[in-house]
């Protein structure tokens, strides 16, 4: 009987689990991280049927120290996202992952290996956290923020990438009477410009896979395609479940490594 690999991605916003056997996804589930990630991990792993667990994400070390009854290994989210992108889109040459508190730009070689990468620095500017925080100013859930912003047409230039200062800037634009939809669009554009800068520094290549929770946001997708000036007919490759990519990559790594060990 083939082995089952469980990939667990402990992010700042959510914790995702993917079970994989012989390249087939058996199960995918996800819980919010909350202030007690350990409890959320336990809930997610309850009655887990797997032979190996591979943890990734900023909480990967936490899982290693939990003393679980099955073998646990860890790998970084960079490698995990590279593997998942390659699996879902075999031609992929670049991955963009925008998660809850960090953004990663990952270059892949023609054979799918990570060649270069860059991550945002200490602060969470330009990540999901930024969107969540600024959506709050408009009193709408972050899930609806992208669609709302798409109703704007003339975005003001928002310079501040600091989340707190961006809020101040947005508030003063509101006071000047700028349409809120336009301000929302401007906030989205500020993230996208920053992200494109990061992609270019790593060396922009396509096909580009866009993963992480922020890939659900329709406004970010549209603006990214526009700012990247993708050739006609080319679009971003977006996984069906972009927030499960890290966990999928972790499970794939387990499977790949097992294959190597067996060989």
């Amino acid at each position, binding site marked *: 009987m083939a082995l089952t690999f469980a990939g667990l991605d402990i992010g700042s916003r959510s914790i995702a689990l993917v079970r994989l056997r012989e390249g087939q996804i058996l199960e995918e589930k996800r819980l919010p991280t909350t202030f007690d990630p350990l409890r959320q991990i336990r809930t997610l792993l309850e009655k887990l049927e797997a032979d190996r667990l591979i943890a990734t994400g*900023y909480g990967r070390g936490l899982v290693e120290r939990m003393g679980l009854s099955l073998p646990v290994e860890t*790998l*970084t*989210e*960079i*490698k995990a996202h590279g593997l998942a992108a390659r699996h879902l889109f075999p031609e992929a040459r670049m991955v963009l992952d925008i998660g809850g508190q*960090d953004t990663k730009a990952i270059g892949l070689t023609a054979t799918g*290996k*990570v*060649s*270069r*990468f860059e*991550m945002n*620095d*200490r602060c969470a500017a330009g990540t999901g956290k930024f969107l969540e925080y600024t959506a709050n100013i408009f009193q709408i859930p972050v899930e609806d923020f992208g669609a709302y912003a798409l109703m704007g047409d003339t975005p003001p230039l928002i310079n501040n990438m600091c989340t707190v200062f961006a809020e101040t800037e947005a508030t003063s634009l509101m006071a000047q009477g700028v349409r809120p939809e336009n301000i929302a669009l401007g906030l989205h554009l500020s993230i996208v410009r920053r992200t494109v800068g990061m992609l270019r520094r790593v060396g922009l290549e396509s096909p580009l896979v866009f993963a992480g929770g922020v890939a659900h946001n329709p406004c970010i997708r549209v603006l990214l395609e526009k700012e990247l000036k993708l050739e006609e007919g080319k679009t971003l490759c977006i996984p069906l479940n972009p927030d499960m990519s890290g966990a999928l990559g972790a499970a794939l790594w387990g499977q790949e490594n097992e294959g190597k060990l067996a060989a």
Partner: protein
Amino acid sequence: MTDARYAEMWEKLNLDLPAHDALLGVLGQFYGDIYMSQEGRLKGMEYLDFVLSEVHGLRVQELQEAKARGAKVVGTFCVFVPEELTLAAGAVHVGLCAGAEAGTEEAEKILPRNTCALIKSFVGFKMARICPFTESCDLVVGETTCDGKKKAYEAFGELVPMHVMELPQTKTDAARALFRSEVIRYKEKLETLTGVAITPEKLRAAMATVNAKRKALQRLDALRSADPSPISGRDALLIHQVAFYDDPVRFTASINALCDQMEVRVGAKEGVSPKGTPRILLSGCPMAVPNWKLPYITESSGAVIVGEESCIGTRNIRDLTDESAQDMDGLIDALVDRYLRIDCACFTPNTERMANVVSMARELKADGVLHYGLMFCQPYAHEAIKLEKVLRKEEIPMLAIETDYSMEDMEQLKTRVEAFVEMIR
């Protein structure tokens, strides 16, 4: 608790004892976590453990004894200050504390906040009165390397007896003439300070002492080209750090003894980690004691560090001084030649550094280069961009890290470094 053996000495040096005790407590714990936890360490490292445990004790006591005999203590911050001249004047040459967050609030009263951690550190150590080396100095020698340092010396000069050497920023003939005059001015300053006339004989003897130290360290670094590496990067960095404040003759003998052990290890194909462990060359800004953050993260991520392309590393020891000249003029020329070969990022252009990193990476069989820049360090931040391009052409992967002495970015750094190790594996 203040160590009773040294309490009186520290009090005499006007240290802030409770703050100093706290510093030693943190240092001891940090050292335990990062160093004593290592497996497969060389026996010869016990000497380094001892030196470090006595860094503010026995070594400072030796300085006081030297002072009681009439010798002077000269503190420095940079590998451009010719140690040979200091020793020829019968003075003690020490590198000053600059590797930990200390007295930051105090330091920020006289320095802009956007100043690199190294500069803030040495100013902070002084203002918080917790560095017995700084307090022992009869002279502190600065140099006009980067803007941050040269402006900091203006403020620092109000706190300590200061001599600033003007360092040129290019390597033209005119720049060489300037540096030569500065070397002579330093020599004269030392002669006034110590009352000792520096003769060619004394200078040649000092050159031999310093060259012997450099050769021992060169030997150590060369042995690290073996796979598996006979020594951890952390231990090697510690040795390069201790080179700045230990007695040079005693230190040289200990390092040579350590190298003998390393040779046996290499012969037996043994090492600190299995053969095939990913090998990393550190490159960039200096890591002063006790700045072990990045090496610790790197070696905890399944890699081994095989070289330090840094002022606390090869930049300090790569070139020897020619001892053959007979007269003072010739010896001064030899010093100027030797020191102007240093490939510091303060120079423009500084293309030789690019070539030096590539050849080091090849010689040490490094799988990748980890570039370490101190936040707000303009010269090395610029060169990180250049170096990456050069290394990419050579198909040597590079990761650029910018950080400081705080621990708040440990997790982010771990992720980056681990991902880099996965990439080069």
